[in-house]
């Protein structure tokens, strides 16, 4: 086996593919071949770095130098200057990237140090090559369980001890969910991964799937082992083509290596994993709607209880976990619950993947400790408000989220602290709005989203979303009437109390937070109507 002196990584995700990463790769291989450097420099496709809107990204290791906005025409210079002579190409947009908190790096922006657990391999390995994944520590958690023949109860105990909580938004303790499923009566059980990521402003699960699909496979096998399921399903949004392709390839490789299928690692444990593609319905992110869709039906949520842990897929006990939640499992099983508990806060251990976007300098993805202040996410990682304008609000958690004003910038980003401040962590989306943005306009957009995505099964949600949209529309048009704000809030509160599922129940969050924190904007909008 040859040893390469330098590795060039080309992160491939939807954004870089659009910007022409494959053209850059072809050119790079051609230039290296012409200079007979192919046995010295290895070119690899990696998963995402989490930096978006910066075109093609090219990283040189071990130098840890990242080039941004690389065009095909830049390639010869990078080869001649950097790869041959070891000099950074001055004319190109570049940055040294911090790989861990212990290695100093830039102070601001997405290239500064992040603590990466679920995305630790995503940007340094080729997600389509299982050998690289295994070399980097993949499947170690599963291997430990099977080699040591840990009883399933011990696996559940370890997850409970770790304090891992659901990263899909609800924050329910994962170990407890697994325990309920394991203890539920009935022979056949299922583990389902919710990869129907549809919350506006959220793309963390996509980047985990695109960057390290094997992590999810390992986690699903561990979960299957723990709850006593021989079959697992990953329900992915139909729009996530690259995620589906990568996971499909990864499943085939894992099967070939005996890490999926019959008698895994000769332990007697067998596990099969299937991908199911969604077809465009936000409501299918709700676990019972997702199950209905898996069964081949309309994605109408079920009445709860009974919960999926006792009556899930085909009425059998089923654990439904989010991608990011599961992505934490391999690390916990490989390094132990105590290791995990040392990260994050006491009640919310571990990291959280945030997507920071909107009016920020560096939109993209950040994985950092639970409990990191909002200010640090926006101003530290996100580089602050774009163009030096003033901060107005952040919409946390997506459309089913909460508008927070400037006075809450120092809130800690974990389930408890946010709840105390009448906000939510949700999916981890942080949409930043500058002083020029209108909360009225954003609330209108949210209302439109909900009216479109309501499945129509229950009356409060079907009628309520439409009513709220009508009011939000006329306020936005400057035709607001006296009492509109109160009516809107009353409708949203009624929906909260009476809707069947979290879709109808959550519109109250953006409505209430917008009206409470930005009342003057709504008054102003109504006032304009008065003059007109």
């Amino acid at each position, binding site marked *: 086996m040859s040893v390469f002196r330098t590795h060039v990584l080309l992160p491939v995700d*939807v*954004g870089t593919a*659009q910007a022409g990463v494959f053209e850059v790769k072809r050119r790079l291989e051609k230039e290296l071949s012409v200079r007979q450097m192919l046995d010295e420099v290895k070119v690899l496709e990696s998963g995402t770095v989490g930096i*978006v*809107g910066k075109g093609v990204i090219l990283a040189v290791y071990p130098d840890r130098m990242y080039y941004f906005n690389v065009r095909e025409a830049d390639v010869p210079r990078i080869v001649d200057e950097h790869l041959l002579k070891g000099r950074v190409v001055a004319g190109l947009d570049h940055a040294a990237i911090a790989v861990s908190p212990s290695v100093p790096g830039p102070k601001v922006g997405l290239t500064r140090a992040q603590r990466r657990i679920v995305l630790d391999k995503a940007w340094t390995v080729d997600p389509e090559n299982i050998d690289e994944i295994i070399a980097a520590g993949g499947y170690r958690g599963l291997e430990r369980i099977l080699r040591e023949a840990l009883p399933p109860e011990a696996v559940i105990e370890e997850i409970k001890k770790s304090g891992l909580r659901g990263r899909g938004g609800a924050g329910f303790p994962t170990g407890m969910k697994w325990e309920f499923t394991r203890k539920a009566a009935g022979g056949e059980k299922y583990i389902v991964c919710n990869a129907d*990521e*549809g*919350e*506006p*402003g*959220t*793309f963390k699960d*996509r980047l985990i799937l695109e960057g390290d699909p094997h992590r999810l496979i390992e986690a699903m096998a561990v979960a299957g082992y723990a709850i006593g399921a021989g079959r697992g399903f990953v329900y992915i*949004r*139909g*729009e*996530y*083509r690259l995620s589906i392709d990568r996971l499909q390839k990864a499943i085939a490789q894992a099967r070939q290596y005996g890490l999926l299928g019959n008698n895994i690692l000769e332990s007697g444990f067998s596990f099969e994993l299937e991908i*199911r*593609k*969604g*077809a*465009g*319905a*936000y409501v299918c992110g709700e676990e019972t709607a997702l199950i209905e*869709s*898996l*069964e*081949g*039906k*309309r*994605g109408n949520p079920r009445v709860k209880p009974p919960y999926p842990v006792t009556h899930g897929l085909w009425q059998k006990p089923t654990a439904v976990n989010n991608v990011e939640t599961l992505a934490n499992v391999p690390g916990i099983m490989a390094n132990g619950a105590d290791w995990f508990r040392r990260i994050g806060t006491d009640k919310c251990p571990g990291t959280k993947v945030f*997507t920071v*976007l*909107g*009016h920020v300098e560096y*939109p*993209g*993805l950040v994985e950092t400790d639970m409990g990191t202040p909002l200010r640090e996410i926006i101003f530290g990682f996100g580089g602050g408000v774009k163009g030096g304008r003033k901060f107005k609000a952040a*919409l946390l958690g*997506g*459309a089913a989220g909460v508008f927070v004003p400037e006075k809450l910038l120092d809130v800690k980003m974990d389930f408890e602290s946010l709840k105390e401040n009448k906000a939510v962590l949700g999916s981890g*989306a942080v*949409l930043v*709005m500058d002083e020029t*943005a209108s909360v009225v*306009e*954003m609330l209108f*957009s*949210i209302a*439109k*989203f909900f009216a*479109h*995505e309501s*499945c129509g099964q229950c009356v409060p949600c079907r009628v309520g979303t439409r009513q709220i949209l009508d009011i939000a529309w006329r306020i936005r048009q400057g035709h607001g009437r006296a009492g509109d704000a109160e009516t809107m809030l009353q409708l949203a509160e009624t929906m909260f109390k009476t809707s069947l599922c979290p879709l109808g129940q959550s519109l109250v969050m953006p409505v209430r937070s917008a009206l409470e924190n930005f009342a003057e904007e709504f008054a102003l909008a109504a006032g304009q109507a008065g003059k007109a």
Partner: protein
Amino acid sequence: MKPEKILKRYGRSGDNLLAILHDIQDASPEHYLSDADLRSAADYLRLPYSFVHGVASFYTMYSLKPRGRNLIRVCQSPPCHLLGSSTISRELIKVLGVGFGETTADRLFTLEMTSCLGVCGVAPAMMVNDRVYGNLTAERIAGIIDDLRRAQ
């Protein structure tokens, strides 16, 4: 590929319905599910036609009427809205001469709106077939459409 051939790749189990509808639609040059398609899926899976129709009309990725060769889906969710997706929509309507849910007379383009595509880092964004176009400005729209026209 004929729908019959697609059907045979799947077991006669109701949970395969979504995948079957995806495959039939992907194989259709007009990117849609005809009444005959729905009936053949229903017969194959031994499901009522009304049930299959209910599923096909529930999910936004399926279309029950013929669409143009290029499917343009503009994201209108809050993050794209904040960064100006309504300007992009207006420009597309102007350049294409059709509204949302409509197809151009030359059957080259169908314009649709979509919920969050998960590419919010490059908002405002749209998808044309499988390709994502991000950081859109109204000025870029005419050029993108021209390129697509020429590519036919």
